[in-house]
């Protein structure tokens, strides 16, 4: 195939051909192509749990009353400011006056009421309805004021309003948001070629600062080798989280690219069935904890160091406490604990693994480590739907490896029916106390206590947090490199 430049050169117009790149450089680049691993199934973050929906839409197409910034802090968004009454029950939000939806619908307090009531309606498929459970009443005294009254003080109420499940939608467009989303955000939806790419364009009527990018394309590339190839060929300008950790060295060596290692809220655990013998015995779980050499496991999975955890908490959060030394690697101690528990020669159990590479790789290393003390963990790979059905909902498992990616999800350990079936009244009381403790320092201290209890009880094997490997073209700035929330806001992305 003859390209235009070859044709021009062949026609004796070398001088003109040489001009072409100069013309292209005269204007600063204002479009970007960003690759991500998973494709969103729909584009409505209020009706489905898929992370990819949020990654594309949150803070780009849709916005909530508040938003999370790249450091994890809650900052104003569609609400310009808010006041919390002394009883911690009444939130008065002052709304933006100049925000409109992409179809021209003005943003008003009525739409806040509509969105939150829609989320808890009987036919709602909102995956995080519990965010709205504390709400007793929503009042709209005027178009720019919303007053929300809670049933009881709820420390993480505002935090939850920054999630994709709490974005503000309009009655005229809400039903079609799955396929043609209409929000208030800095970018509007243009086109979606399912299976390949999704295009966004700058919302020129945006209420906030005008984004530098005029056009953004998300590409969906799941194959790790294809991710690397598209980056190196320059087909894409960035990959939000590289699925090929083994290619990191190769990409770092490429001067056209830069690689950043960041943290996420995804705690990877060796999930343990606390209700099933022999795992209901604290000594057995402690023995396993002494066997799990996190550094070896993480290195085996990624080939480079990632952040290790000793409890169910991400180092991204200010309340994080380093508990990785609670049960340091010690085979002799592990054997002694097993003997005390009546298993001097170990035992046989299953290790049911979901499909992600981190789970499969970590699972094999863990099985090898457990074999050192006579625990014969038989690996059973499962597809994700089967994992959900058998392990998560059916609680039919001994051990499993999974990442819990929702931010601040330590409260799950207070749920008796949760799949690892940890039942501790002391912990439940503590979580209940955290829920009503609003001063941040006090609450963070309580979170520290909660982390210590889980570490002490060796509820699960706490391994590491999923790293975020952001690869970008050398000139691209402003991408999120940490994931306090797994999203890719484009408003601050710019070419230098």
């Amino acid at each position, binding site marked *: 195939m003859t390209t235009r430049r070859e044709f021009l050169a062949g026609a004796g117009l070398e001088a003109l051909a040489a001009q072409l790149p100069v013309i292209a450089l005269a204007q600063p680049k204002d479009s970007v192509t960003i690759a991500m691993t998973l494709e969103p*199934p729909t584009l409505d973050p209020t009706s489905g*749990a*898929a992370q990819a929906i949020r990654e594309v839409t949150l803070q780009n197409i849709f916005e909530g009353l508040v938003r999370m910034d790249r450091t994890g802090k809650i900052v104003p968004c569609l609400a310009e400011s808010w006041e919390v009454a002394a009883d911690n029950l009444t939130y008065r939000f002052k709304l933006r006056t100049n925000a409109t939806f992409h179809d021209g619908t003005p943003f008003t307090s009525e739409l806040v009421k509509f969105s939150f009531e829609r989320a808890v309606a009987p036919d709602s498929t909102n995956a995080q309805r519990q965010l709205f459970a504390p709400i007793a009443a929503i009042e709209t005294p005027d178009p720019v004021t919303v007053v929300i009254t809670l049933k009881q003080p709820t420390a993480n109420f505002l935090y939850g309003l920054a999630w994709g499940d709490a974005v503000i939608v309009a009655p005229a467009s809400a039903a079609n948001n799955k396929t043609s989303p209409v929000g208030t955000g800095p970018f509007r939806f243009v086109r979606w070629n399912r*299976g390949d*790419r999704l295009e966004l364009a700058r919302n020129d009527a945006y209420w906030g600062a005008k984004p530098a990018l005029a056009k953004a394309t998300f590409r969906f590339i799941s194959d790790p*080798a294809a991710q690397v190839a598209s980056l190196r060929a320059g087909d894409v300008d960035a990959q939000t989280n590289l699925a090929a950790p083994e290619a990191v060295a190769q990409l770092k060596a490429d001067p056209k690219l830069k690689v950043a290692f960041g943290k996420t809220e995804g705690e990877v655990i060796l999930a343990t069935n606390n209700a099933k013998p022999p795992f209901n015995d604290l000594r057995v779980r402690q023995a396993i904890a002494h066997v799990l050499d996190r550094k070896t496991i993480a290195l085996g999975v990624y080939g480079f160091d990632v952040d290790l955890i000793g409890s169910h908490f991400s180092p991204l959060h200010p309340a994080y406490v380093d508990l990785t030394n609670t049960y340091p690697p010690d085979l002799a101690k592990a054997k002694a604990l097993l003997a005390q528990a009546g298993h001097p020669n170990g035992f046989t159990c299953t290790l049911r693994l979901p499909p992600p590479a981190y789970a499969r790789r970590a699972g094999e290393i863990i099985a090898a480590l457990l074999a050192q003390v006579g625990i014969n963990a038989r690996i059973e790979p499962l597809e994700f*739907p089967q994992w959900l059905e058998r392990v998560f909902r059916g609680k039919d498992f001994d051990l499993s490896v999974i990442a819990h990616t929702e931010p601040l999800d330590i409260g799950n350990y207070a749920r008796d029916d949760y799949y690892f079936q940890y039942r501790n009244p002391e912990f439940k009381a503590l979580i209940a106390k955290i829920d009503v403790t609003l001063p941040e320092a006090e609450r963070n201290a309580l979170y520290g206590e909660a982390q210590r209890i889980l570490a002490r009880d060796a509820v699960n094997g706490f391994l590491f947090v999923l790293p975020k490997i952001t690869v970008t073209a050398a000139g691209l700035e402003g991408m999120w490199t940490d994931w306090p929330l797994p999203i890719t806001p484009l408003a601050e992305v710019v070419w230098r």
Partner: protein
Amino acid sequence: MLAFAGRRLIAFVLTLMAAALVIFLMLEVLPGDPAAVTLGLNAAPEALAALRAEMGLDRPAVVRFLAWVGGLVTGDLGLSYTYRVPVSQLIAERMAVTLPLALMAMTLAAAIGVPLGMLAAANHNRPADAAVMVFAQAGLAIPNFWFGLLLVLVFAIGLGWLPAGGFPGWQAGAGAALRSLALPALALALPQAAILARVTRSAMLDTLQEDFVRTARAKGLGEAATVLRHALRNALIPVVTILGLQFSVLIAGAIIIENVFALPGLGRLVFQSIAQHDLIVVKDLVMLFAALAILVNFLVDLLYGVIDPRLREAA
């Protein structure tokens, strides 16, 4: 011929109905709830119940089977559980990638494989023959995804001539669309070309032994005319059979290549819908592939008649 076609048509419909029942039953016993997959780890039971009702999963299996088959007959393939759009729309979008890809790959394979096979047969036991056989061995031995990666390394990363993957869509222009299909088509075509080269060679060798070829040579016909006009047509039956088989393989079996090149084709849709438990898409696609395979076999039978008039009379 008509009676023959009619009998084939009845067999076609019966096979499809049997396939529908088997597919439905197999997916029915598979554990896993599509609604739970959509709503994830923290879903409230009320939300799950609402979604199950929305997806129609709260109805008994018999009702769902009849609704599905009824839909197939009337052309309504249902709504995808994951994408929440009509399955027929999804399939049409993916066909716009897979069909041109398969056609390109098949044309390439035939354009490379058939002449090579003829060349080898005409030069039996000479260096050209050996070279073609080495190519055929290598083409069969090299996994096509690995060859695809190699092509990307050379033409996308090294030379920067073609994109490493993805599909800009036909709205971006035929040039851009064909450019992104070039490398995957080549990767898909290589093993098929190797097979075709071998089949063509052995069929040609058989034909070249025949009496009528000797007669053609005896009456003073040139070598080229002998091979092209007399031998080739008679050697085409096995070649066309293989081409027909390859076409179904190319439509349904491009899963790996479509993943390597991040192409939004049918193969990738199968892969995705299985992983995401989008059972309605899986069911419809498996039905589609079954129908396609049977249809292609039917067309190949008809082609035999065109190539060899004796078969027409026998039918």
